[in-house]
């Protein structure tokens, strides 16, 4: 199973995402923002970091990179795409996911181990979790406050598109404790916390993040 990890100028957690794919038993494939080449991957991860320094708005410039056109096209055909942190911001800016991520309410970058509740276990990236399961993975961002107009939030909730909620404390002031959302078809998922930093006991607060990368191996087969 080939899982692409897209590197933009300023991507940082691409090595971590690739490691997580490897530990889950997949084959990470490095993708370069400026190419129009998805290298026959079965799914794509947009990793965390500061693409283009997060200048202008986090994710705004990366969302307009050449390879993103290919990602958007394939995603619309059902290819699984995961956006982590900066990758989530890119997906929102690219219009693949609803809403936007803005400056944290306390105005600081914040890195902590965060409890999340999995609200949906039927997306391409969450099949190995149970609905209602609590997981602990790191969160680290300065612009992670998820916002959208109230009506849009109501609609998202109604459609069951909230995949993760912050639990035991909201680290950035996100509306309705939303930590991650999905596309209508459940194939594209974005979240601010970092599952790729919770895949080894030695280096993470838990191994709760591994489930993202094992889930997609099955989902991509099923597709």
């Amino acid at each position: 199973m080939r899982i692409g990890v897209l590197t933009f100028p300023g991507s940082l957690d691409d090595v971590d995402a690739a490691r997580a794919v490897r530990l889950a038993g997949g084959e990470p494939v490095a993708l370069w923002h400026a190419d129009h080449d998805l290298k026959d991957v079965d799914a794509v991860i947009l990793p965390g970091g500061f693409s283009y320094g997060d200048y202008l708005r986090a994710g705004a410039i990366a969302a307009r990179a050449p390879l993103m056109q290919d990602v958007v096209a394939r995603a619309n055909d059902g290819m699984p795409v995961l956006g982590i942190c900066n990758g989530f911001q890119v997906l929102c800016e690219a219009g693949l996911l609803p809403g936007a991520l803005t400056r944290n309410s306390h105005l600081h970058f914040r890195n902590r181990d965060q409890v999340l509740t999995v609200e949906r276990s039927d997306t391409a990236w969450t099949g190995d979790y149970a609905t209602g399961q609590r997981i602990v993975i790191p969160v680290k961002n300065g612009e992670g406050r998820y916002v959208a107009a109230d009506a849009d939030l109501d609609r998202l909730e109604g459609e069951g598109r909230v995949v993760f909620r912050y639990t035991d404390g909201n680290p950035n002031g996100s509306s309705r404790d939303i930590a991650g959302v999905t596309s209508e078809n459940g194939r594209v998922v974005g979240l601010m916390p970092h599952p790729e930093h919770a895949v080894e006991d030695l280096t993470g607060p838990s191994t709760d993040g591994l489930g993202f990368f094992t889930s997609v191996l099955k989902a991509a087969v099923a597709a």
Partner: protein
Amino acid sequence: MIDTVELAAKSPDDEQPWAELGLKSDEYDRIKSILGRRPTTAELAMYSVMWSEHCSYKSSKVHLRQFGDLPHSDALLVGIGENAGVVDVGDGYAVTFKVESHNHPSYVEPYQGAATGVGGIVRDILTMGARPIAVMDSLRFGRADAPDTARVLPGVVAGVGGYGNCLGLPNIGGELLFDDCYAGNPLVNALCVGVMRHEDVRLAKAEGLGNKVILFGARTGGDGIGGVSVLASETFDEHGPAKRPSVQVGDPFTEKLLIEACLEIFAADLVTGIQDLGGAGLSCATSELASAGTGGMHVDLDTVPLRDSTLTPAEILMSESQERMCAIVEPAKVDAFLAVCRKWDVLATVIGEVTDGDRLTVDWHGERIVDVPPRTVAHEGPVYERPMTRPADLDALQADDAARLPRPSTGAELQAHWLAVVSSPDGADKTWVTEQYDRYVRGNTVLAQPEDAGVVRIDEQSHRGIALALDGNARYARLDPYAGAQLNLAEAYRNVAVSGAKPLAVTNCLNFGSPEEPEVMWQFAEAVRGLADGCRELGLPVTGGNVSLYNQTGDVPINPTPVIGVLGVHEDVRRRIPGGWRADGETVLLLGETRAEFGGSAWASVVHGHLGGKPPVVDLAAERRLGELLAGLPGLVSSAHDLADGGLAQTLAESALRYGVGARLHLDGDLFTALFSESAARAVVTTGDSDAVRTAAAAAGVPVTELGTTGGDTLTVDGLLELGITELRAAWSATLPALFGAPEIAVGSVPAGTVPTS
């Protein structure tokens, strides 16, 4: 009208602003005698920045030689003198690390000063051929409740985080301490560590006739001009002329691209020499490269890409615009070099070449404006043996023994003092600061704050890794700079050792007042001597460091603040020892000997506002025994935490609070001494097999005291006091958020242009 070499030769008597540029009259005379004429304006600019204290180490050089004279160490691959020293950590891996100050710029513009401090030290590490893998920061501010601390601290922390986070470097530890003496002069010391294979070490020299000089990275602008000579060597004096030096603005995104481009360039073997541009910008890079090489160098200044077309040639040579590097490249490899830069959107320009002969020449608009022997600029600057005197107040200070201060006697008083120490700004939870730093990125962080040392895995297959700690107690150094430097060395050594690592090498950042004050110079000389002697005794090389002088407000210097970094190696990071208690029912053991030592202690400072007496006794042989014992303990102990500021009281609190596991303890002898003494060479460990630990300790010659057993939700000292973990945590964790946590304090701490926050 450009001042050319030709013109300078014809107009020997033209007035030049050497004094404004910080040169002394004899220094100016020396430049004239080196050149056999007056310098051109551009040459004067180069000499003045390169001969500033910051670049030339003119006051400190004679003392720092002691580090170079330390006995040979097999671990040392590259010693002092290059951008950073390089150490062999086994399996063919080499590690380079260094700590550097950015104190004065951080006072003027906290966010950018701190950010560019991180940027600068990262480039030093990159220059050695290494991939930077982690950063640390050691910070000092005035009193925590002083208004100016509220102005400076949030910006500094946001700047350290903003830059390091955006580069993708985990922050694995540091220090945050407060003292009145830093009120007008905060300290921002940043450390970076990088890793490479032995064969990948790169040096800063220009070799090979005809090789090209390539400037790459950001464009050159008018920022930071004169920063070196003005910013770094002048005092901030309210009554002096207002200096509004231009500040450098950092662009971590460009630096990230520079890192990736450089690593690709190194991997393809495209450079013969490389140097970063830091203080003194192009003046420094070109003269150092040329000076270290065998030939000369010629630069055509018109080719330098500018951000501001009105810059004069002298300004271009002095500009400290950030995120720039300079490489020496064989002509046949230039195209490949430029192609890598294009891939990473890094601007790269050939600006000159290596020449035969031994001159550094620079042309501007077709005219020669610089023609100098590069060694005289870079390496043969003035050297001073400044006068020194032992501070007049030192005897009285040492005689004012902290042992005579009123002590707590009842359980209630002990408890109150305990809480006061751990909830003081120095003792309190640093989470409010450290959670602004990414500690996870790159996925190799094994231990980070609040552990004693940061531990990073460097090989995912073999699990080899490194440990690092930074320590700089300035109270001890004020009371006795020789012993203080050794105590800081000992603490950093101990912090690395408690993680289970074998200490290997030392870096340091020496923050002192004005070298022109004989009493400060004495403090400096004593600290260097103490550090050198300490390293000799511990068998550790000093691989590099940094000196920051003129840290004073008016004529009041800061307490001498030698910040010492120790690097250790872990053969297998899976065997690292964390600092906190995790399980119930383990035996708590104190390793080492406790004496009644309160001089410079946190207790005296927090409870009595007192600084006096002598610092704790230095016993490096005992430190070494403790370190060797700890290195053999993984597997036997489940936690280890060193004792330092705040003594056992602080260590017990931190160990319990880490995972919320308490303990029942009984302390023999004088309880006050047991809790608050700061005797060195001690650590607390927990174990399920205390007999085995005792046997190992006996063999190592380390005294062991059984303190009690972990478990429960209180820290209980039999018959005397009982501190609830909840109550303790509330006191410990409330301090910094109460002082700095309100969002409105952050207003203005992050400037307009450069706000990477995600």
